[in-house]
């Protein structure tokens, strides 16, 4: 690719320099060779919209005017003009009559073009985001003009000379007579061969360019009529070889001029059409990038909302887990009860019976207390299981949200990646033909310049010929302007892709950061639950050990005391 471009540059540079050297003085007695007439209607911007309600179409821009058609709600129309607060419309299906509809009854379809000019009716604040609560960056005076890049939630996305952001749509007026993009090209080609008389080789080129403005301001009808006689041999040969090299044609060695003036003229006409085709690529590139940008925004918004809902679940789960963790278990001291039991030897059977009865009561109390504790533990356990259920439910909801989020992020991200790919592909596809096109046009311009130099250098001997060069100079100037704008357009395409990519990249990072937050919270809740369970296990184990130890010791004490009581009672007997 690079090599090809460099080759093009070198060839075009060499062509330019060689083409600028006059090889032959032109003769004023040139005969007229073929005449080709080409009519090209260029760039007719289309603005469409839909009727908001059932609307009357009137013959004039007045509510008192005759009704010529009635638009049903949602009818698609093309805006073909504007008069004060009235849009001149025509149905897109070409049914009915064209006429005027009050501007508030038409909702402009912003997807059909990349922007339009607009202005604000009053002082308006420019917001960072399409929300009235978002931060404002600037306040602009009434009737400030700007480009409207799109519509989001009843906000216009605007771009002015020194500002960019969102404004409330109701405070602005969109001007459909100044759309920026979405173009339609209609070419009318008419070749009329004219008197072919002589084989004299000299050149005089005249051109006539007229521009007609249609009823619709940006629609420009450009009619170019070019008459070309014969060309400078060396320059034409050079151009022929050059053009042939690029277009893949073959030049026969030794044959008469590879391209005559007719061919050269066709090349010029072809160049103009190619330029238009190339200009159309810009729209494709920008539409791809805008789609990518909108997909990224949609993804960010969806992920933001989903993660926000997930965060609520995380909060509930986290609070529940924290509650579970803080729930401890009461300690029961069996040993204390055992120590309270009295097995001291008695001096009489009665007192021994009383003691035994007392001990029996105390043991019964102990059993009751242990049962109560077991019940409360049982309830606590049930509560904890219920809490765990609630946590699991929250996680289930989050899994559901996370799955949905994964699906749409895959979908949207892939669209964004594809959109950028397509934009780059369109740009690269444009680069090749544009290089060839620019080289060809530079070649043509060089030839024209060489002819002009020849004509002007001969001004003393033939002032009329020099005068006839004036229209040609104007044409060259126009062609240079066209080519410059084509190249600058290409440059802007690159910047457009890079600028939008930079925004997409930033938004991608924001989305990632949101997702990372969700992941972090996920981990937090899980860690908390695990730590809760570890703590509980430890506590449970400790209690069980303690109780077992206490019970063992208690048995020993009871056995010992019972033994001594038995001995004492035996002695008493």
């Amino acid at each position, binding site marked *: 690719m690079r090599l090809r471009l460099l080759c093009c540059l070198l060839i075009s540079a060499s062509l330019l320099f060689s083409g600028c050297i006059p090889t032959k003085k032109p003769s004023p007695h040139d005969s007229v060779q073929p005449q080709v007439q080409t009519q090209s209607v260029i760039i007719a911007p289309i603005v469409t919209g839909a009727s908001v309600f059932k609307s009357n179409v009137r013959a004039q821009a007045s509510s008192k005017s005759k009704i010529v058609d009635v638009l049903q709600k949602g009818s698609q129309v093309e805006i073909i003009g504007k008069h004060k607060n009235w849009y001149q419309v025509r149905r897109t299906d070409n049914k009915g009559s064209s006429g005027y509809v009050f501007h508030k009854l038409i909702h402009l379809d912003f997807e059909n073009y990349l922007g339009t000019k607009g202005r604000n009716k009053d002082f308006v604040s420019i917001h960072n985001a399409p929300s009235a609560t978002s931060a404002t960056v600037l306040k602009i005076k009434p009737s400030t003009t700007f480009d409207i890049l799109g519509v989001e939630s009843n906000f216009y996305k605007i771009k002015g000379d020194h500002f960019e952001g969102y404004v409330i749509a109701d405070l602005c007026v969109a001007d459909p007579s100044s759309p920026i993009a979405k173009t339609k090209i209609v070419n009318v080609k008419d070749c009329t061969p004219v008197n072919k008389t002589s084989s004299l080789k000299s050149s005089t080129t005249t051109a006539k360019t007229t521009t007609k403005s249609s009823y619709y301001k940006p629609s420009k009808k450009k009619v170019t009529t070019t008459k070309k006689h014969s060309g400078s041999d060396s320059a034409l040969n050079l151009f022929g070889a050059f053009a042939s090299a690029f277009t893949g044609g073959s030049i026969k060695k030794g044959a008469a001029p590879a391209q005559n003036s007719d061919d050269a003229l066709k090349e010029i006409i072809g160049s103009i059409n190619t330029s238009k085709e190339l200009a159309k690529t810009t729209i494709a590139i920008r539409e791809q990038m805008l789609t990518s940008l909108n997909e990224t925004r949609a993804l960010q918004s969806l992920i933001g909302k989903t993660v926000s809902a997930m965060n609520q679940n995380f909060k509930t789960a986290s609070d529940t887990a924290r509650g579970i963790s803080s729930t401890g278990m009461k300690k029961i001291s069996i040993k204390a009860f055992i120590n309270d039991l009295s097995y001291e030897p008695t001096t009489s059977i009665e007192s021994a019976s009383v003691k035994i009865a007392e001990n029996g009561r105390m043991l019964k109390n102990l059993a009751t207390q242990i049962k109560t504790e077991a019940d409360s533990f049982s309830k606590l*356990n049930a509560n904890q299981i219920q809490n765990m259920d609630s946590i699991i439910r929250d*996680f289930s909801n989050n899994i559901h949200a996370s799955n949905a989020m994964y699906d749409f992020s895959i979908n949207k*991200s892939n669209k964004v990646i594809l959109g950028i790919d397509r934009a780059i592909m369109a740009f690269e596809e444009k680069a090749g033909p544009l290089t060839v096109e620019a080289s060809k046009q530079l070649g043509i311009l060089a030839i024209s310049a060489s002819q002009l130099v020849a004509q002007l250098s001969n001004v003393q001997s033939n002032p009329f010929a020099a005068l006839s060069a004036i229209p040609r100079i104007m044409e060259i100037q126009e062609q240079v302007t066209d080519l410059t704008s084509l190249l600058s357009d290409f440059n802007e395409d690159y910047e457009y*892709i890079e600028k939008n*990519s*930079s925004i997409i990249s930033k938004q*991608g990072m924001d989305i990632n950061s949101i*997702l990372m937050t969700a992941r972090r919270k996920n981990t937090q*809740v899980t860690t908390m639950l695990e730590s809760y369970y570890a703590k509980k296990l430890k506590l449970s184990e400790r209690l069980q050990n303690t109780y077992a130890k206490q019970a063992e010791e208690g048995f020993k004490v009871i056995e010992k005391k019972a033994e001594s009581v038995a001995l004492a009672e035996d002695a008493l007997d």
Partner: protein
Amino acid sequence: MKKFKLLILCFAAMLLIASCSFKNAETAQNSMREVNHSAEDLREDSEASKKTSEELKKHEQSESVETHKW
């Protein structure tokens, strides 16, 4: 002549641009790929968390009151 110079400059700029790579575009694409990975990771994390909490619940249930009847 000035226009000619401008034209040649534009042409040179065009070639320069065409030979440049799209850095931001590449970053944007990578960024979106990372979004996909992050979304996938989040999905896996959520599933792992649910699994963990379900296991804990099972343990809770098996930790029956019977073991605490002294």
